[in-house]
């Protein structure tokens, strides 16, 4: 009998371990370990760049007359949400000493891009279609910068300039 009871206790421990593992899978743990921060930053920048690119793509499609207003609005709102999620994710993580500089760059660029997406969203909701092309160009530039940043984050931090 004790063998069985012990077995159930072991099973309960295993199950709760599994559940907690699963829980942490969705919410990335924020350890200030150097490589871990770099990977998180890469993901955040990648998500941000996807959101910016989607916003740009949608705006350009509107100029070609391929999307309608409600859809465009929702896509922009979703992009904005994606940006703020990326900003929150990386902004709340403690960067290790060696990554302080890149932390500033990452958060700065993401915030800037987020502001741009917000501007685009405002323009879309107000139906200022004459501004779309210019906004799309600025979004393209922001996306470019983010992608360069993502490439840079492939490597560990360069020490000393």
């Amino acid at each position, binding site marked *: *009998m004790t063998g*069985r*009871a012990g077995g*159930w206790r072991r099973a309960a421990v295993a199950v709760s371990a599994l559940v907690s593992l699963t829980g942490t899978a969705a919410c990335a743990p924020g350890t200030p370990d150097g490589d871990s921060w770099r990977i998180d930053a890469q993901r955040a920048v990648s998500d941000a760049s996807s959101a910016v690119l989607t916003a740009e793509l949608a705006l350009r499609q509107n100029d070609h007359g391929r999307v309608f207003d409600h859809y465009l609005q929702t896509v922009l709102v979703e992009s904005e949400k994606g940006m703020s999620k990326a900003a929150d994710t990386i902004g709340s993580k403690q960067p290790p000493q060696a990554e302080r500089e890149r932390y500033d760059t990452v958060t700065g660029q993401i915030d800037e891009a987020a502001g741009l997406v917000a501007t685009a969203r405002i323009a879309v909701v107000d139906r200022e279609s004459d501004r779309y092309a210019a906004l799309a160009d600025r979004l393209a530039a922001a996306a470019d910068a983010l992608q360069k940043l993502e490439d840079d984050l492939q490597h560990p931090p360069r020490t000393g300039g």
Partner: protein
Amino acid sequence: MSDQDNRLSGALDAVLHLLDRQVVDAEGLLVCKVDDLELTVFDDGVLGVTGLLCGSAALVPRYADDGLGRRLHALWRRLGTQQADRDDPYRIDLELVHRLRSGVELAVGREGVLVRQGERGHRLNDVLQMTVQDLAGRRLGRVLDVRLEHETVDPGERIRVTGLVVGHGRPGSYFGYDRRPDMGPWMVNRVVRWLHRHSAFVALEDLDDLDWVAGIIRVDPARLGPLEAAGGSGG
């Protein structure tokens, strides 16, 4: 009840063919599941199935195979201490059963057919949770299934228990492969038959002792015979 199509007219295995089956009424509406079976010892000493038991009072005790199940059962009972009939399951008399095919078909409509009639007799679950020991008290295994057979007895007919299927592991998890050597798919067949290679059949009269209270069955291992499908080659 003697019908080509009716399993209850021949030999069958309680767990494999009858337990956990859907009960359907005369109009085809669903009634309940066969959560347990009522076993009665008749005047002539024969053990037989006399009714279907349904409801939580019949189902929850079936979880009580091990510690967790027992705790669940205890919890369930605590939740209803004020009820005098907490352990009293709903009962359908076997006379109301028309036939057994993929489900149990009743001869009546389902309105009011489930009645609490007070605990009488034993339950199949009691047998399934018994330990099987040899004459010296060493554990041989447990009861995996109970073989039943229809018999006509003056003035009517009844379903009697003719023997037990004994082996290692739990009832309900053998899917009948141990009794049906040719059932596919091949891979599952091999695995299940290997897992239950120790399963055997013992006739009820060959049992040394069946202690309902202690939950122990004593049998001489020499009395254990090979396992075959109920009713021979019957469908």
